[in-house]
Protein backbone atom coordinates (compact mmCIF):
# COMPACT_ATOMS: atom_id res chain seq x y z
CA UNK A 1 0.00 0.00 0.00
CA UNK A 2 2.71 2.40 0.96
CA UNK A 3 4.80 3.19 -2.07
CA UNK A 4 7.79 5.25 -1.26
CA UNK A 5 8.76 7.23 -4.31
CA UNK A 6 12.00 8.23 -2.73
CA UNK A 7 14.32 6.79 -0.18
CA UNK A 8 13.61 8.35 3.21
CA UNK A 9 15.56 11.55 3.04
CA UNK A 10 15.70 12.04 6.76
CA UNK A 11 17.48 9.78 9.16
CA UNK A 12 15.18 8.43 11.89
CA UNK A 13 14.40 11.39 14.11
CA UNK A 14 15.62 11.44 17.64
CA UNK A 15 13.09 12.16 20.39
CA UNK A 16 14.46 15.61 21.15
CA UNK A 17 14.24 16.78 17.59
CA UNK A 18 10.76 15.38 17.06
CA UNK A 19 7.93 17.82 17.54
CA UNK A 20 4.85 15.99 16.30
CA UNK A 21 4.58 12.23 16.03
CA UNK A 22 1.74 10.00 14.89
CA UNK A 23 2.08 6.25 15.08
CA UNK A 24 -0.61 4.03 13.67
CA UNK A 25 -3.17 6.77 14.27
CA UNK A 26 -6.65 5.67 13.20
CA UNK A 27 -9.87 7.60 13.53
CA UNK A 28 -13.25 6.04 12.84
CA UNK A 29 -16.54 7.89 12.83
CA UNK A 30 -19.73 6.14 13.91
CA UNK A 31 -22.33 5.85 11.14
CA UNK A 32 -25.09 8.42 10.96
CA UNK A 33 -27.76 5.84 11.77
CA UNK A 34 -27.41 2.74 13.91
CA UNK A 35 -27.46 0.42 10.90
CA UNK A 36 -24.95 2.46 8.88
CA UNK A 37 -21.42 1.21 8.86
CA UNK A 38 -18.84 3.32 10.65
CA UNK A 39 -16.63 5.26 8.27
CA UNK A 40 -12.91 5.32 8.63
CA UNK A 41 -11.57 8.86 8.51
CA UNK A 42 -7.92 8.09 8.87
CA UNK A 43 -6.24 4.71 8.74
CA UNK A 44 -2.99 3.77 10.39
CA UNK A 45 -1.10 7.00 9.79
CA UNK A 46 2.48 7.10 10.97
CA UNK A 47 4.53 10.22 10.47
CA UNK A 48 6.67 12.64 12.38
CA UNK A 49 7.59 16.29 12.10
CA UNK A 50 10.91 17.66 13.28
CA UNK A 51 11.09 20.87 15.28
CA UNK A 52 11.08 23.85 12.97
CA UNK A 53 10.10 21.74 10.00
CA UNK A 54 7.22 22.60 7.67
CA UNK A 55 5.29 19.47 6.81
CA UNK A 56 2.67 19.78 4.11
CA UNK A 57 -0.01 17.11 3.97
CA UNK A 58 -1.75 16.81 0.64
CA UNK A 59 -4.68 14.58 -0.27
CA UNK A 60 -8.01 14.47 -2.06
CA UNK A 61 -11.10 16.02 -0.51
CA UNK A 62 -12.55 14.00 2.33
CA UNK A 63 -9.41 11.92 2.91
CA UNK A 64 -9.22 12.86 6.56
CA UNK A 65 -6.72 15.72 6.30
CA UNK A 66 -8.67 17.86 8.71
CA UNK A 67 -9.08 14.91 11.03
CA UNK A 68 -5.31 14.45 11.04
CA UNK A 69 -4.85 18.08 11.97
CA UNK A 70 -7.45 17.97 14.72
CA UNK A 71 -5.76 14.89 16.12
CA UNK A 72 -2.47 16.75 16.26
CA UNK A 73 -4.09 19.80 17.89
CA UNK A 74 -5.81 17.76 20.56
CA UNK A 75 -9.28 18.63 19.28
CA UNK A 76 -9.88 14.91 18.65
CA UNK A 77 -8.55 11.64 20.02
CA UNK A 78 -7.44 8.71 17.86
CA UNK A 79 -9.40 5.45 18.18
CA UNK A 80 -6.23 3.48 17.74
CA UNK A 81 -2.57 4.42 17.67
CA UNK A 82 -0.94 7.36 19.28
CA UNK A 83 -0.49 11.06 18.63
CA UNK A 84 2.03 13.05 20.59
CA UNK A 85 3.43 16.54 20.57
CA UNK A 86 6.79 17.10 22.22
CA UNK A 87 6.60 13.62 23.67
CA UNK A 88 3.25 14.07 25.43
CA UNK A 89 0.22 12.25 24.07
CA UNK A 90 -2.51 13.76 26.26
CA UNK A 91 -5.08 15.93 24.51
CA UNK A 92 -4.55 18.74 26.99
CA UNK A 93 -0.82 18.81 26.28
CA UNK A 94 -1.41 18.82 22.53
CA UNK A 95 -3.95 21.63 22.88
CA UNK A 96 -1.46 23.68 24.82
CA UNK A 97 1.34 23.17 22.29
CA UNK A 98 -0.57 23.73 19.05
CA UNK A 99 -2.20 26.74 17.45
CA UNK A 100 -4.97 25.90 15.01
CA UNK A 101 -5.89 27.87 11.93
CA UNK A 102 -8.95 26.83 9.93
CA UNK A 103 -9.81 27.21 6.27
CA UNK A 104 -12.28 29.93 7.18
CA UNK A 105 -10.76 32.92 8.92
CA UNK A 106 -13.31 32.73 11.79
CA UNK A 107 -12.75 36.38 12.66
CA UNK A 108 -15.32 37.68 15.11
CA UNK A 109 -17.27 40.33 13.18
CA UNK A 110 -17.68 42.65 16.17
CA UNK A 111 -13.95 42.91 16.86
CA UNK A 112 -11.64 45.04 14.79
CA UNK A 113 -8.62 43.40 13.15
CA UNK A 114 -6.17 43.91 16.00
CA UNK A 115 -8.70 42.82 18.64
CA UNK A 116 -9.33 39.68 16.62
CA UNK A 117 -5.64 38.83 16.59
CA UNK A 118 -5.37 39.79 20.27
CA UNK A 119 -8.14 37.29 21.09
CA UNK A 120 -5.42 34.63 21.25
CA UNK A 121 -3.78 36.50 24.13
CA UNK A 122 -7.07 37.36 25.84
CA UNK A 123 -7.95 33.67 25.98
CA UNK A 124 -4.79 33.16 27.99
CA UNK A 125 -5.93 35.72 30.54
CA UNK A 126 -4.17 38.80 29.19
CA UNK A 127 -6.24 41.98 29.63
CA UNK A 128 -7.96 43.53 26.64
CA UNK A 129 -5.77 46.61 26.39
CA UNK A 130 -2.51 44.79 27.10
CA UNK A 131 -3.40 42.17 24.47
CA UNK A 132 -3.90 44.90 21.86
CA UNK A 133 -0.62 46.51 22.84
CA UNK A 134 1.24 43.25 22.39
CA UNK A 135 -0.41 42.51 19.05
CA UNK A 136 0.50 45.90 17.58
CA UNK A 137 4.19 45.18 16.79
CA UNK A 138 3.17 42.10 14.81
CA UNK A 139 0.77 44.17 12.73
CA UNK A 140 3.54 46.65 12.03
CA UNK A 141 5.97 43.92 11.10
CA UNK A 142 3.59 42.31 8.66
CA UNK A 143 2.53 45.62 7.14
CA UNK A 144 -1.02 45.48 8.47
CA UNK A 145 -0.82 48.50 10.79
CA UNK A 146 -3.14 50.63 8.70
CA UNK A 147 -5.86 47.98 9.01
CA UNK A 148 -5.72 47.57 12.78
CA UNK A 149 -9.03 49.31 13.38
CA UNK A 150 -10.95 47.78 10.48
CA UNK A 151 -13.82 45.42 11.16
CA UNK A 152 -13.59 42.04 9.40
CA UNK A 153 -16.54 43.01 7.21
CA UNK A 154 -14.41 45.80 5.75
CA UNK A 155 -11.43 43.56 4.91
CA UNK A 156 -10.75 41.51 1.79
CA UNK A 157 -10.48 37.73 2.02
CA UNK A 158 -6.68 37.84 1.85
CA UNK A 159 -6.45 40.46 4.58
CA UNK A 160 -8.81 38.52 6.80
CA UNK A 161 -6.68 35.42 6.41
CA UNK A 162 -3.57 37.40 7.34
CA UNK A 163 -5.25 38.62 10.50
CA UNK A 164 -6.28 35.03 11.26
CA UNK A 165 -2.66 33.96 10.83
CA UNK A 166 -1.43 36.69 13.20
CA UNK A 167 -3.97 35.42 15.73
CA UNK A 168 -2.50 31.95 15.27
CA UNK A 169 1.03 33.30 15.82
CA UNK A 170 -0.03 35.30 18.88
CA UNK A 171 -1.26 32.14 20.56
CA UNK A 172 2.48 31.69 21.17
CA UNK A 173 2.49 27.94 20.54
CA UNK A 174 5.50 26.11 19.11
CA UNK A 175 3.41 24.12 16.63
CA UNK A 176 1.13 25.66 14.00
CA UNK A 177 -1.63 23.53 12.51
CA UNK A 178 -2.92 25.09 9.31
CA UNK A 179 -6.05 23.55 7.80
CA UNK A 180 -6.23 24.57 4.12
CA UNK A 181 -5.50 28.16 5.15
CA UNK A 182 -5.97 29.62 1.67
CA UNK A 183 -8.55 27.29 0.13
CA UNK A 184 -11.28 29.91 0.36
CA UNK A 185 -9.27 32.51 -1.60
CA UNK A 186 -9.12 33.12 -5.34
CA UNK A 187 -6.02 31.72 -7.05
CA UNK A 188 -4.19 35.04 -7.46
CA UNK A 189 -4.69 36.01 -3.83
CA UNK A 190 -3.77 32.48 -2.81
CA UNK A 191 -0.44 32.67 -4.63
CA UNK A 192 0.35 35.99 -2.94
CA UNK A 193 -0.65 34.57 0.43
CA UNK A 194 1.59 31.52 0.00
CA UNK A 195 4.60 33.78 -0.50
CA UNK A 196 3.49 35.94 2.42
CA UNK A 197 3.20 32.87 4.65
CA UNK A 198 6.61 31.56 3.57
CA UNK A 199 8.10 34.98 4.44
CA UNK A 200 6.26 35.10 7.73
CA UNK A 201 7.52 31.65 8.70
CA UNK A 202 11.09 32.63 7.76
CA UNK A 203 10.80 35.44 10.31
CA UNK A 204 8.89 33.41 12.92
CA UNK A 205 10.17 29.85 12.60
CA UNK A 206 7.73 27.30 13.99
CA UNK A 207 6.95 23.67 13.53
CA UNK A 208 4.18 23.65 10.96
CA UNK A 209 1.72 21.01 9.84
CA UNK A 210 -0.11 22.43 6.85
CA UNK A 211 -2.92 20.51 5.23
CA UNK A 212 -3.97 21.28 1.66
CA UNK A 213 -5.51 19.70 -1.42
CA UNK A 214 -3.29 21.79 -3.67
CA UNK A 215 -0.09 19.95 -4.63
CA UNK A 216 1.65 23.11 -5.76
CA UNK A 217 0.90 24.84 -2.49
CA UNK A 218 2.19 21.84 -0.55
CA UNK A 219 5.47 21.79 -2.48
CA UNK A 220 5.90 25.54 -2.35
CA UNK A 221 5.44 25.78 1.42
CA UNK A 222 6.71 22.45 2.70
CA UNK A 223 10.13 21.14 3.64
CA UNK A 224 8.51 17.76 3.25
CA UNK A 225 5.25 16.64 1.68
CA UNK A 226 3.15 13.69 2.76
CA UNK A 227 0.56 12.40 0.30
CA UNK A 228 -2.59 10.80 1.69
CA UNK A 229 -4.85 8.42 -0.21
CA UNK A 230 -8.60 8.85 -0.61
CA UNK A 231 -10.75 7.93 2.39
CA UNK A 232 -9.73 6.34 4.60
CA UNK A 233 -6.57 8.42 4.43
CA UNK A 234 -3.30 6.55 4.56
CA UNK A 235 0.19 7.78 3.78
CA UNK A 236 0.97 6.76 0.20
CA UNK A 237 4.06 8.87 -0.44
CA UNK A 238 6.52 11.09 1.28
CA UNK A 239 8.59 13.62 -0.65
CA UNK A 240 11.43 15.77 0.57
CA UNK A 241 11.27 19.16 -1.08
CA UNK A 242 14.96 19.78 -1.63
CA UNK A 243 14.56 23.29 -2.96
CA UNK A 244 16.50 26.15 -1.43
CA UNK A 245 14.74 28.94 0.47
CA UNK A 246 13.68 31.63 -0.02
CA UNK A 247 11.66 30.33 -2.91
CA UNK A 248 10.64 33.10 -5.26
CA UNK A 249 7.31 31.88 -6.55
CA UNK A 250 7.65 32.26 -10.31
CA UNK A 251 11.13 30.77 -10.51
CA UNK A 252 10.21 27.99 -8.10
CA UNK A 253 7.07 26.69 -9.72
CA UNK A 254 8.78 26.51 -13.10
CA UNK A 255 11.96 24.93 -11.69
CA UNK A 256 12.69 21.50 -13.18
CA UNK A 257 13.04 19.86 -9.76
CA UNK A 258 9.76 21.41 -8.61
CA UNK A 259 7.97 20.09 -11.67
CA UNK A 260 9.49 16.66 -11.11
CA UNK A 261 8.32 16.59 -7.48
CA UNK A 262 4.90 17.76 -8.58
CA UNK A 263 4.65 14.87 -11.03
CA UNK A 264 5.62 12.41 -8.31
CA UNK A 265 3.02 13.83 -5.95
CA UNK A 266 0.29 13.79 -8.59
CA UNK A 267 1.19 10.23 -9.50
CA UNK A 268 0.90 9.20 -5.85
CA UNK A 269 -2.47 10.95 -5.60
CA UNK A 270 -3.77 9.20 -8.70
CA UNK A 271 -2.64 5.75 -7.53
Amino acid sequence: MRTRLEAPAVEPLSIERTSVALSGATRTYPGRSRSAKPTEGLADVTLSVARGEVLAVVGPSGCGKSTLLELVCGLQEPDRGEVSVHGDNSAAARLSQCAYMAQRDLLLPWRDAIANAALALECQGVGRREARRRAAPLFRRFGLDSFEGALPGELSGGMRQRVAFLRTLLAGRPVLCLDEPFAALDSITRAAMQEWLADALAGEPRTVVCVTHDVEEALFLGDRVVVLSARPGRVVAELRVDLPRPRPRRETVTDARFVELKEQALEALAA
Partner: protein
Amino acid sequence: MRRLLPAGLILLAAIGLWQLVASIGSVDDLTLASPLETARSLADDWQLLADNALVTLTEVALGLAIGVALGAASAVAMHLVRPLRDAAYPLLVASQAIPIVVLAPVFVLAFDYGIGPKLVIVALICFFPITVSMLDGLRAVDADVLKLMRSLGASRLATLRKAELPASLPQFFSGLKVAASVSVIGAVFGEWAGANDGLGRLVLLANTQLQTPRVYAGIVVLTLMAVALFALVTLAERVAVPWKRTEASR
Protein backbone atom coordinates in the same frame (compact mmCIF):
# COMPACT_ATOMS: atom_id res chain seq x y z
CA MET B 1 -37.12 58.87 5.94
CA ARG B 2 -37.79 57.85 2.38
CA ARG B 3 -38.46 54.27 3.47
CA LEU B 4 -41.21 55.51 5.78
CA LEU B 5 -43.09 57.17 2.92
CA PRO B 6 -45.18 54.13 1.81
CA ALA B 7 -46.22 53.40 5.40
CA GLY B 8 -47.13 57.06 5.86
CA LEU B 9 -49.26 57.02 2.73
CA ILE B 10 -51.15 53.91 3.84
CA LEU B 11 -51.68 55.49 7.26
CA LEU B 12 -53.06 58.66 5.62
CA ALA B 13 -55.35 56.61 3.42
CA ALA B 14 -56.60 54.68 6.46
CA ILE B 15 -57.31 57.90 8.34
CA GLY B 16 -59.13 59.24 5.28
CA LEU B 17 -61.27 56.11 5.09
CA TRP B 18 -61.92 56.32 8.82
CA GLN B 19 -63.10 59.92 8.47
CA LEU B 20 -65.30 58.92 5.53
CA VAL B 21 -66.98 56.05 7.40
CA ALA B 22 -67.47 58.23 10.49
CA SER B 23 -69.11 60.95 8.38
CA ILE B 24 -71.77 58.58 7.03
CA GLY B 25 -74.87 59.37 9.03
CA SER B 26 -75.79 55.80 9.77
CA VAL B 27 -72.78 55.16 12.03
CA ASP B 28 -73.47 55.90 15.67
CA ASP B 29 -71.21 58.58 17.19
CA LEU B 30 -70.92 56.44 20.32
CA THR B 31 -69.49 53.53 18.35
CA LEU B 32 -67.04 55.41 16.19
CA ALA B 33 -65.32 58.70 16.82
CA SER B 34 -64.01 60.38 13.68
CA PRO B 35 -60.32 61.27 13.32
CA LEU B 36 -61.24 64.93 13.83
CA GLU B 37 -63.07 64.21 17.08
CA THR B 38 -60.15 62.05 18.20
CA ALA B 39 -57.74 64.89 17.40
CA ARG B 40 -59.91 67.30 19.33
CA SER B 41 -59.89 64.97 22.32
CA LEU B 42 -56.11 64.63 22.05
CA ALA B 43 -55.83 68.42 22.27
CA ASP B 44 -58.47 68.97 24.98
CA ASP B 45 -57.51 66.03 27.22
CA TRP B 46 -53.80 66.45 26.68
CA GLN B 47 -52.92 66.83 30.34
CA LEU B 48 -55.07 63.90 31.40
CA LEU B 49 -53.62 61.67 28.67
CA ALA B 50 -50.04 62.69 29.45
CA ASP B 51 -50.41 62.02 33.19
CA ASN B 52 -51.86 58.59 32.57
CA ALA B 53 -49.40 57.82 29.77
CA LEU B 54 -46.56 58.45 32.21
CA VAL B 55 -48.01 55.86 34.59
CA THR B 56 -48.38 53.28 31.83
CA LEU B 57 -44.93 54.07 30.42
CA THR B 58 -43.39 53.47 33.85
CA GLU B 59 -45.13 50.10 34.07
CA VAL B 60 -43.96 49.19 30.57
CA ALA B 61 -40.36 50.32 31.06
CA LEU B 62 -39.88 48.63 34.43
CA GLY B 63 -41.75 45.48 33.40
CA LEU B 64 -39.76 45.25 30.18
CA ALA B 65 -36.50 45.74 32.08
CA ILE B 66 -37.41 42.94 34.50
CA GLY B 67 -38.53 40.69 31.64
CA VAL B 68 -35.31 41.33 29.69
CA ALA B 69 -33.08 40.72 32.71
CA LEU B 70 -34.87 37.48 33.64
CA GLY B 71 -35.14 36.35 30.02
CA ALA B 72 -31.45 36.94 29.27
CA ALA B 73 -30.37 35.32 32.53
CA SER B 74 -32.47 32.22 31.98
CA ALA B 75 -31.30 31.95 28.36
CA VAL B 76 -27.68 31.98 29.51
CA ALA B 77 -28.42 29.52 32.31
CA MET B 78 -30.20 27.12 29.97
CA HIS B 79 -27.39 27.48 27.46
CA LEU B 80 -24.69 26.65 29.99
CA VAL B 81 -26.53 23.83 31.76
CA ARG B 82 -27.90 21.32 29.29
CA PRO B 83 -30.10 19.39 31.78
CA LEU B 84 -31.68 22.67 32.81
CA ARG B 85 -32.57 23.40 29.19
CA ASP B 86 -34.04 19.94 28.70
CA ALA B 87 -36.12 20.32 31.85
CA ALA B 88 -37.21 23.95 31.59
CA TYR B 89 -37.64 24.62 27.89
CA PRO B 90 -40.75 22.48 27.24
CA LEU B 91 -42.39 23.91 30.36
CA LEU B 92 -41.53 27.41 29.18
CA VAL B 93 -43.20 26.78 25.83
CA ALA B 94 -46.23 25.22 27.53
CA SER B 95 -46.52 28.25 29.83
CA GLN B 96 -47.24 30.38 26.77
CA ALA B 97 -50.58 28.63 26.38
CA ILE B 98 -51.76 30.20 29.63
CA PRO B 99 -53.72 33.34 28.73
CA ILE B 100 -52.17 36.13 30.74
CA VAL B 101 -55.40 38.15 30.43
CA VAL B 102 -57.12 35.56 32.59
CA LEU B 103 -54.31 35.62 35.09
CA ALA B 104 -54.29 39.40 35.43
CA PRO B 105 -57.15 39.61 37.97
CA VAL B 106 -55.45 36.91 40.03
CA PHE B 107 -52.28 38.97 40.17
CA VAL B 108 -54.29 42.02 41.18
CA LEU B 109 -55.81 39.99 44.01
CA ALA B 110 -52.37 38.85 45.04
CA PHE B 111 -50.47 42.13 44.66
CA ASP B 112 -53.10 44.81 45.14
CA TYR B 113 -53.97 47.75 42.85
CA GLY B 114 -50.45 49.19 42.72
CA ILE B 115 -47.77 48.86 40.07
CA GLY B 116 -46.87 45.32 41.20
CA PRO B 117 -49.31 43.22 39.15
CA LYS B 118 -48.65 45.32 36.02
CA LEU B 119 -44.93 44.69 36.31
CA VAL B 120 -45.54 40.96 36.73
CA ILE B 121 -47.75 40.81 33.66
CA VAL B 122 -45.48 42.93 31.43
CA ALA B 123 -42.42 40.97 32.57
CA LEU B 124 -44.18 37.64 31.94
CA ILE B 125 -45.18 38.67 28.44
CA CYS B 126 -41.70 39.98 27.56
CA PHE B 127 -39.83 37.10 29.12
CA PHE B 128 -40.69 34.48 26.53
CA PRO B 129 -39.58 36.15 23.26
CA ILE B 130 -36.36 37.31 24.90
CA THR B 131 -35.50 33.88 26.31
CA VAL B 132 -36.30 31.93 23.17
CA SER B 133 -34.54 34.22 20.71
CA MET B 134 -31.47 34.71 22.88
CA LEU B 135 -31.15 30.98 23.51
CA ASP B 136 -31.31 30.42 19.77
CA GLY B 137 -28.66 33.10 19.30
CA LEU B 138 -26.34 31.54 21.86
CA ARG B 139 -26.70 28.13 20.27
CA ALA B 140 -26.25 29.38 16.72
CA VAL B 141 -22.56 30.19 17.23
CA ASP B 142 -20.41 28.69 14.49
CA ALA B 143 -19.09 25.28 15.59
CA ASP B 144 -15.70 26.19 14.11
CA VAL B 145 -15.54 29.33 16.25
CA LEU B 146 -16.08 27.15 19.32
CA LYS B 147 -13.30 24.85 18.09
CA LEU B 148 -11.06 27.87 17.66
CA MET B 149 -11.82 29.11 21.18
CA ARG B 150 -11.01 25.66 22.54
CA SER B 151 -7.70 25.54 20.70
CA LEU B 152 -6.85 29.03 21.98
CA GLY B 153 -7.27 27.69 25.50
CA ALA B 154 -10.34 29.79 26.33
CA SER B 155 -12.26 28.92 29.49
CA ARG B 156 -16.01 28.22 29.31
CA LEU B 157 -16.68 31.70 30.69
CA ALA B 158 -14.31 33.36 28.21
CA THR B 159 -16.00 31.54 25.33
CA LEU B 160 -19.37 32.76 26.58
CA ARG B 161 -18.22 36.35 27.03
CA LYS B 162 -16.06 36.75 23.95
CA ALA B 163 -17.84 34.58 21.39
CA GLU B 164 -21.32 33.43 22.33
CA LEU B 165 -22.81 36.51 24.00
CA PRO B 166 -21.77 38.99 21.28
CA ALA B 167 -22.88 36.54 18.60
CA SER B 168 -26.30 36.24 20.22
CA LEU B 169 -26.90 40.01 20.22
CA PRO B 170 -28.70 40.22 16.85
CA GLN B 171 -31.10 37.47 17.93
CA PHE B 172 -31.49 39.09 21.33
CA PHE B 173 -32.57 42.30 19.66
CA SER B 174 -35.10 40.46 17.49
CA GLY B 175 -36.64 39.12 20.69
CA LEU B 176 -36.46 42.54 22.31
CA LYS B 177 -38.37 44.09 19.39
CA VAL B 178 -41.19 41.59 19.85
CA ALA B 179 -41.11 42.09 23.62
CA ALA B 180 -41.19 45.90 23.30
CA SER B 181 -44.22 45.77 21.02
CA VAL B 182 -46.24 43.46 23.26
CA SER B 183 -45.17 45.08 26.53
CA VAL B 184 -47.71 47.90 26.08
CA ILE B 185 -50.51 45.35 25.65
CA GLY B 186 -49.38 43.69 28.86
CA ALA B 187 -49.59 46.95 30.79
CA VAL B 188 -53.11 47.63 29.44
CA PHE B 189 -54.29 44.15 30.51
CA GLY B 190 -52.82 44.78 33.92
CA GLU B 191 -54.67 48.06 34.27
CA TRP B 192 -57.95 46.57 33.07
CA ALA B 193 -57.77 44.00 35.82
CA GLY B 194 -57.68 46.75 38.39
CA ALA B 195 -55.89 50.08 38.65
CA ASN B 196 -56.28 53.63 39.88
CA ASP B 197 -54.64 55.26 36.89
CA GLY B 198 -52.87 54.58 33.59
CA LEU B 199 -53.92 54.79 29.94
CA GLY B 200 -55.54 51.36 29.93
CA ARG B 201 -57.75 52.31 32.82
CA LEU B 202 -58.50 55.69 31.22
CA VAL B 203 -59.66 54.01 28.02
CA LEU B 204 -61.83 51.56 29.96
CA LEU B 205 -63.34 54.36 32.03
CA ALA B 206 -63.99 56.60 29.01
CA ASN B 207 -65.70 53.68 27.33
CA THR B 208 -68.14 53.15 30.19
CA GLN B 209 -68.75 56.92 30.33
CA LEU B 210 -69.53 56.90 26.58
CA GLN B 211 -66.67 59.35 25.89
CA THR B 212 -65.80 57.62 22.63
CA PRO B 213 -63.34 60.25 21.29
CA ARG B 214 -61.29 59.90 24.48
CA VAL B 215 -61.18 56.11 24.01
CA TYR B 216 -59.74 56.62 20.56
CA ALA B 217 -57.31 59.28 21.78
CA GLY B 218 -56.06 56.86 24.45
CA ILE B 219 -55.57 54.13 21.86
CA VAL B 220 -53.62 56.54 19.64
CA VAL B 221 -51.27 57.41 22.52
CA LEU B 222 -50.82 53.70 23.39
CA THR B 223 -49.97 52.94 19.77
CA LEU B 224 -47.48 55.78 19.60
CA MET B 225 -45.90 54.46 22.77
CA ALA B 226 -45.41 50.99 21.27
CA VAL B 227 -44.02 52.42 18.03
CA ALA B 228 -41.63 54.69 19.94
CA LEU B 229 -40.40 51.73 22.03
CA PHE B 230 -39.83 49.70 18.88
CA ALA B 231 -37.90 52.56 17.28
CA LEU B 232 -35.81 52.94 20.42
CA VAL B 233 -34.89 49.24 20.36
CA THR B 234 -34.01 49.48 16.67
CA LEU B 235 -31.76 52.43 17.42
CA ALA B 236 -30.10 50.58 20.31
CA GLU B 237 -29.53 47.63 18.00
CA ARG B 238 -27.71 49.83 15.50
CA VAL B 239 -25.41 51.08 18.23
CA ALA B 240 -24.83 47.67 19.84
CA VAL B 241 -24.56 45.57 16.67
CA PRO B 242 -22.70 47.82 14.22
CA TRP B 243 -21.10 44.85 12.47
CA LYS B 244 -24.44 43.60 11.25
CA ARG B 245 -24.60 46.39 8.70
CA THR B 246 -21.01 45.98 7.46
CA GLU B 247 -21.66 42.25 7.16
CA ALA B 248 -24.83 42.79 5.20
CA SER B 249 -23.21 45.26 2.82
CA ARG B 250 -20.35 42.93 2.05
